[in-house]
């Protein structure tokens, strides 16, 4: 399998690398890859200006894996609109990682900034540390956020996780910020620790599981109990339905309601 290794040389300012994606790389030769467009500030650069590009197994076949070394929060839009292949980011990744993604897999051995997986419709994003705001959210103005695929975060996330989510799954191992699943329509969010205030606010459908505590609004009515087993532990979850402000049919399953 053809593998490309990009080593980031570092840059003081944000760099838009929407062209780093197996869907763009495909069967381009090393020379063609070096000339791919990269934007920073009001200027256009080439990929070779910011990266050392190495190739493993240079056979003529589509690029399967891209590895980005020394990555920082300044690398924005990695894997945007990708539909196949695999990206491994060693380090942190900047905003809009995997936005509009349709398929394939992204693994980040570090943290990501805001808008990770925004409006994605398929594929898998795996983050080994923390994520920022608007994980799997919709961009301003759009009516649907994440529509499919899976986002897994080993650490914590900030506010507006899964905003207007309409499908797929988000799994967060540690805490979430406020407005979890804001305006959520469909899909499933699982938080294995606690969440902040306004959880599930204006929710219309879908499911939010919280294995810790969370604050929920008055629009939710308790409908029953749910017994599950998570990592060998037996949990009793209180099931709420709402948000009645939106005549919503969403479900929040929560271990403990904080006041």
């Amino acid at each position: 399998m053809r593998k490309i290794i990009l080593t980031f040389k570092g840059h003081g300012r944000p760099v838009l690398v929407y062209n780093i994606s197996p869907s763009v790389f495909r069967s381009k030769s090393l020379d063609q890859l070096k000339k791919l467009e990269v934007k920073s500030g009001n200027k256009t650069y080439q990929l070779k200006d910011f990266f050392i590009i190495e190739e493993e197994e240079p056979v003529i076949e589509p690029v399967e894996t891209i590895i980005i070394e020394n990555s920082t929060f300044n690398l924005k839009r990695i894997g945007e609109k990708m539909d196949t292949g695999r990206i491994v980011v060693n380090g942190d990744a900047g905003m809009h990682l995997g936005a509009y993604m349709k398929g394939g897999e992204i693994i980040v051995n570090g943290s990501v900034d805001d808008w990770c997986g925004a409006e994605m419709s398929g594929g898998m994003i795996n983050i080994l540390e923390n994520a920022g705001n608007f994980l799997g959210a919709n961009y301003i103005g759009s009516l649907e956020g994440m529509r499919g695929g899976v986002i897994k975060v080993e650490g914590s996330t900030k506010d507006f996780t899964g905003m207007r989510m309409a499908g797929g799954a988000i799994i967060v191992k540690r805490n979430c910020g406020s407005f979890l699943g804001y305006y959520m329509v469909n899909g499933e969010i699982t938080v294995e620790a606690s969440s902040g205030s306004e959880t599930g606010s204006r929710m219309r459908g879908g499911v939010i599981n919280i294995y810790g505590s969370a604050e929920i609004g008055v629009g939710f009515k308790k409908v029953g109990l749910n017994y599950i087993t998570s990592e060998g532990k037996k949990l009793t979850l209180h099931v709420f339905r709402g948000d009645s402000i939106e005549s919503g049919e969403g479900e929040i399953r929560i271990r403990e309601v904080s006041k």
Partner: protein
Amino acid sequence: MDILIENGVFVERIKGRDPIVINAERKVILPGGVDLHSHFAGSKVTLGRLLRPEEHRLRHQFGNSGNHIGTGWATPTPFLCGYLYSKLGYAKIVEPAVPPLKARHTHEEMRGIPYMDKMSLLLLGNSWIIMDLIAQKRLKLLEKYVLWVLWASKTYGIKLVAPGSGEAWAWGKSITHIDDEIPNFSITPKDIIYNLARVNKEIGLKTPVHLHTNNLGSPGNYQTTIDSLKTVENLGLRDGDSPFIIHLVHAQFSSYKGDSWKTFSSGSEEVAAYINSNSHVSFDLGQIIFSNTTTMTADGAWQYNLYRLTGGKWINNDVENETASGIVPYTFKRKNYVNAIQWAVGLELALLVKDPWKLAVTTDHPNGGVFTSYPVIIAWLMNKKFRERTIEKINSKAKHIIILPSIDREYTLFETVIVTRSAPARIMGVKDGATIGIGKEANLAIYDLGDPERDLGENPVKLIKGLSSANYNIKNGLIVMKNGVPVQDFNGVTYYSGGVNESEELTELVDYYFKEYYTVEKENYIVQKGEVMHPVNVLEEVFK
């Protein structure tokens, strides 16, 4: 054959040395296009931009080649709007809905639109002053006021949007017939249409009254449309380039039969028959394109109904005592029964009306679709097979109701030039700007449409591709666009009409309304010449 241009006009012989030579062998050379109905600037376009940031992610232009950046699909930002029109080969555009109070905003935006000559039409159909003057039968004063308000807002002509209906709607009522009385004014929409069309003729504006009919978009409205057009039948024709007494805007939205959405059908035959047998009406299509768009009109009542159909986000706006407006995002779908019929109605009208000089191709940008889709409409008009291919994909119930499949007419290239250039220019009274002739303004677009010896309609894909991007766009003798890339900065002129009438009666009237009703002072209301890009008044400035 050579076409010679010097100092912005076509000439017989060039005096200067070393002219720029363009080899246009086997290309198609057309005069610059004229779009007489496109909502491209003004406060409601800006509100549309604010309402729909998601639309601006659909089209970006980065400022790499020295040009300005811009974004937007249905509501492109001013610079991008100028570039896109220029790329299509257009030279003159008309903003058809300017509330007098928002004229300054419109001019500010129009200043930012490069390359184009701009005109704008003033919304007078729901103005309290106009309605009061008609109710009091002070018709001489009405003429003076119309001239003054056109001058004050630096606009070009009169637009009536569902006369009276915006005012009624503000009171929670609706006007469904042009003989209904407008609340608090004891007049009917018919009076407004008749009197303003008469005023338009008397004061000699260059373009007829543009009418957006009452009941627009509702099933069964073709009768209202024909009644409205009949109202002005006895006024005779106008003098000058544009003989029409009334211009029916986006006729497609006004030509429906049926009594509900379920029995919705096409009324194009009736409307086309009326237009064919009468010489006082011109119209533009308002063709819909199957895509997502942001609808915006001064017809607040209709936009409220549309919002109830879609249930999404919307904006409604009331402009003091002058007019109203609304914005609703909408997607025209092939498989939707109503949308499929709407699509057919537009093309039926274009094909059933015999005289191409009476019609202009528009999409009522952005209400029916974006203006960059004009080449697709041309391809539909020029090629029956291409129409049939689209008909195959539309709603199957609609497919059996529309009469479009039975129409065999195909436009010639010559006719398409008339409906996109000469006819709209003539209707707007700027015929010289869209004519290739000695001494005329040198606006040209050069297209590569393939082998000119063959029938150009034969290959619609190539036709659309060719028309979408002009090889050259020449505006006032300058090459402004080359293969879709801006070459140099240039700003067109802004045409306006109207004049100051030194009359005590008028001053008294205007002062009264500003004191009693407006939130602004008269001095701040008048748009100064310095705020307008290259203003050109087509009438006398001062009347006695």
